[in-house]
């Protein structure tokens, strides 16, 4: 077993507009990318649980050409709305770091 923080070369979050936050997992090589993509671990169900959103609010897109998996969910608040703590959405990836991927 290995955790995503150790497998991914890039593990980041960022606004996709003012309403959504998008999480990118980018892997250094095709083998690691395929291992994670095909593990069946990264599912809307898991992301919904980790972020407290509903499954139908989660989109997951594997992007083979860049060895990347993209996950998009709604922001907790609209960017800059009263209560928001992360205007750029750049620190919302922590719930992904300890996801375990079987060897």
């Amino acid at each position, binding site marked *: 077993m290995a955790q995503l923080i150790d497998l991914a070369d890039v593990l980041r979050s960022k*606004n996709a507009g003012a309403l959504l936050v998008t999480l990118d997992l980018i892997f250094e090589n095709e083998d690691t990318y395929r291992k994670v993509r095909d593990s069946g671990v990264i599912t809307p169900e898991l992301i919904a649980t980790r972020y407290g959103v509903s499954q139908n609010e989660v*989109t997951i897109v594997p992007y083979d050409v860049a060895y990347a998996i993209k996950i998009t969910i709604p922001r907790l608040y609209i960017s800059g709305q009263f209560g928001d*703590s992360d205007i750029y959405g750049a620190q919302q990836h922590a*719930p992904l770091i300890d996801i375990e991927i079987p060897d």
Partner: protein
Amino acid sequence: MKPPLRALATTGLLGYGYTEEAFHRAVSLGLDFIAADAGSMDPGPHYLGAGIPFVTRTAIKRDLSFMLDAAIEQNIPLLLGSAGGGGSAPQVAIVRQVIEELAAEKGHHFKMAVIHADQDNETLKEANRAGRIQPLGPIDDLTDESIDETHRVVAMMGVEPFQKALNDGAQVVVAGRATDASIYSAIPLMRGYDPGLVWHMAKIIECAGQVVSPRTGSDSVVGTLNEDHFLVEPGHPDKRCTRMKIAAHTLYENPSPYYLEEPDGTLVTIDSSYEQVSDRVVKVSGSRFEPSKRYTVKLEGVRAGGFRTVFFAGVRDPILISVIDEFVATCHKHVANEAKGLGISPDSYRLNIKVYGQNATMGPREPMKHATPHEIALLADVTADNEDLSRAVMAKARFALLHTDFPGRKCISGNLAIPFSPSDIAVGPTYEFNIWHVMEINDPLKPFPIEMVEV
């Protein structure tokens, strides 16, 4: 065979800078046009609301100086989109003024188009009633009332207003809010290049230095269009573009790397291929553009969000840290009572107290809810209908946080390490996005009036 068309994306954001070395080398390659995106909504709603850039005027002037000189010397167009950050009238006016100032200093003369992107509430209400405005994600539908609340709203133009300005003889185009890729697609589409390649190249180069390694600051990127492919390379001779970075770029800030929406269609990158042709140049082909039946523009609008005062303080007392949630809840109650005592209505202000070191960054999404740090910080945030109210509520909040008892309290002279004097920081008026929608229009030029100026 079409001759190659070469475009320079000077910087990812006008005012973020670029190296002179990269810029001059790019110019020496022979360019068809020079451009820069000047906008982003990333810094949040304040800048559109206040009508100011989030970079300094000094930085904008520095970036424009070389660009304007090169455009005039080479007799090629200079295009700027989303001027001033949000691309609204006061922001566009600042960039226009900087250009006029530079022209006067350097003795440049040219024809300039200034394209406006501000939308008026009545037009939006009409479009909304006709069902032509839809939310662009999880946000409320618009109503006459919510449109009336709007302080400032812009629409994002496509390529057509740029093209009209150029056809009317403009050499310099200062556009209000525009899609990033439209800035770079306008000229190549006029010259008949393949729309799939044009939009994809535009999308990649608009963030300029982001696709360049090593990434030290912001820098220039050159895109070269050919009939069946395009090339991307850094302006700087010692920097590189890599296949993986170029391919990964469509991931950035988009929900899907395969489908990228533009006003008149969708860039589809499913069949795009990326090839490293030298250690610094990447070749892309296979991208396509699927025209849409409807022409849609994105709307971005803000309403007033109240006057903000913030207060920040550290807590090092382990007993207080161990009961911090209950303590914050107690303070909220005290503040509500005290505000009532001052005759302040509960609907006229909002108070939020965040606990840094616990869950301030992620709130309910924080996975490590029960960690116990040795030090935390409290951030109190008040917005209220006016500045006096905002300060009055914050003064009560500060007092409550500093002096309220908690179970087991021993630090009875004060609960907080306050790092500043004055401790309460009034930020002034704030804004909130209330419009993040898409509007269907018939005429891509109508919402974007063009002003022609002889400089």
